């Protein structure tokens, strides 16, 4: 149920992004990708391709699938809400970090939500 809601939210975020392309930032996949997200009833949820490609950047520091082997915190296993809240706090500077706020500032709130949902979905699919 929570998952389904998450996916709905992702679709909303995507349609917003398509409208928001006047900003000059490309979100080409937004429209193209809205199809797979329709399949919310499948056992293994389909990844949002934009969320996926954005999230792949994170694994260079946080580890494959967000599973960290060292001192850097793991992302794997965290809920979408937890991750989104954390990312937004890094972005606003409300939460202290050495480098995360420098990264979080590079994403729109919608993008942070897509990234959070992607990692939450990986954790869910592996269960």
């Amino acid at each position, binding site marked *: 149920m929570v998952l389904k809601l998450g996916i709905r939210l992702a679709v909303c975020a995507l349609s917003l992004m*398509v409208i928001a*392309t*006047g900003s*000059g*930032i*490309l*979100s*080409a*996949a*937004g*429209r*193209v*990708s809205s199809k797979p997200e329709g399949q919310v009833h499948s056992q293994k949820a389909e990844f949002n*391709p*934009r969320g*996926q*490609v*954005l999230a*792949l*950047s*994170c*694994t*260079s*520091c*946080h*580890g*494959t699938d967000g599973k*960290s*082997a*060292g*001192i*850097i915190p793991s992302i794997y296993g965290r809920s979408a809400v937890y991750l989104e809240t954390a990312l937004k706090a890094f972005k606003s500077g409300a939460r202290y970090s*050495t*480098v995360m706020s*420098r*990264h*979080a*500032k*590079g*994403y729109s709130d919608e*993008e942070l939500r897509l990234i959070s949902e992607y990692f939450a979905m990986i954790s869910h699919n592996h269960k």
Partner: protein
Amino acid sequence: MLQKLTRRDFNKLLLSGVAGSALGLFGKSNTAFASTKRVVVIGGGFGGAAAAKYLRKLDPSIAVTLVEPKAIFYTCPFSNWVLGGLKTMEDIAHTYTVLKNKYQINIVSDVVTSIDVTKGTVKLKSGNVLSYDRLVVSPGIDFKWDSIGGYSESVANSKMPHSWHAGPQTILLHKQLLGMRDGGNVFICPPANPFRCPPGPYERASLIAYYLKEHKPKSKIIIFDAKENFSKQELFKKGWERLYPGMIEWRSSAMGGKVSRVDAGAMTVTTEFGVEKGDVINVIPAQKAGKIAFDAGLTDATGWCPINPVSFESTIHPGIHVIGDASFAGAMPKSGFAASSQGKVAAAAIVRLFQGKVPAAPSLVNTCYSLLAPKYGISVAGVYKLTVEGIVEIKEAGGLTPINADDDQLREEALFAEGWYKNISLDTWG
């Protein structure tokens, strides 16, 4: 191509079905669904290994072959730590066992000698030929040996190592430092931009100073720079004053830094200001894309490979994706982090292209940590987006460790540098 479009046209194109063909996105597989999905990856470094792994991870129906001559890959990242005595060569060694066994990538220990872009084949040194539906090229850098008079590959391998490819070159420079007398002069000669790892020469100076301070405290390091300024300059200079006062001297290009000649017999460098003798001389020559990129006609006048930033597909030869140091990726620096980020973006794009779909618009990331001493780390970060101007850095994001960072922050950054190395190594080869 990109420059000729207005921003509005570009966005419209990408949102419409014709975007792919107009931008060369779909390349050779313009037909919706590819019947076979074979990808050959050239080079098992940061870009190539990440692309190979993520292709298999994102779509296990793709057959991936990785061609790499080296059985053991030594990373340039952390090779400066080896020079400082903080890591060993084993610590920076990686193999292809996990990629082969867990990700079922066909690892071919060979060198690609030519690419036939019309037939879609690569020829190997052994004479074997591999067919591909899409090709990923990540050969890293090659050196412009003639950029400094008197320098050559054989000089690099005997007297004046560049150590800008990790492995035997790292070992040679390390041996020279260990053998040097106390009171000796170490010269580091970095090239003009663009080159692999912009903060690398200055991290190297820091960690060599760390070793010398402890073991040969009367020695000096002089950086003969071909540039007027360098990456993280204020942070490095502040760190050098705090950690190694009087030990590291940096000469800008205009102040006698630009090396025009070296003499390996006399162990000297020549600048506009005269001839100087060093005990250990590390010459980092100017760079260009790896040889195979030139041989295959993937480079342009810049010496690097122009690409479509959505998919890293070559704008010269469709169906071939060029990633890592060899590509021209706009504002992104030439780093292992960037190469890995690009490798994953290219992998995700190839998966979509095989499905006859438009790749998702990526966002690219870089973080470069530099260590100045065991508990003293600094970093530069960047987030990059795709616009009509190509890959640009997002102004509101990224940036440097604050110049007034306290010791706790610097210690934390040093710890994160190690955490980063551990995770990116596993994300790439593990």
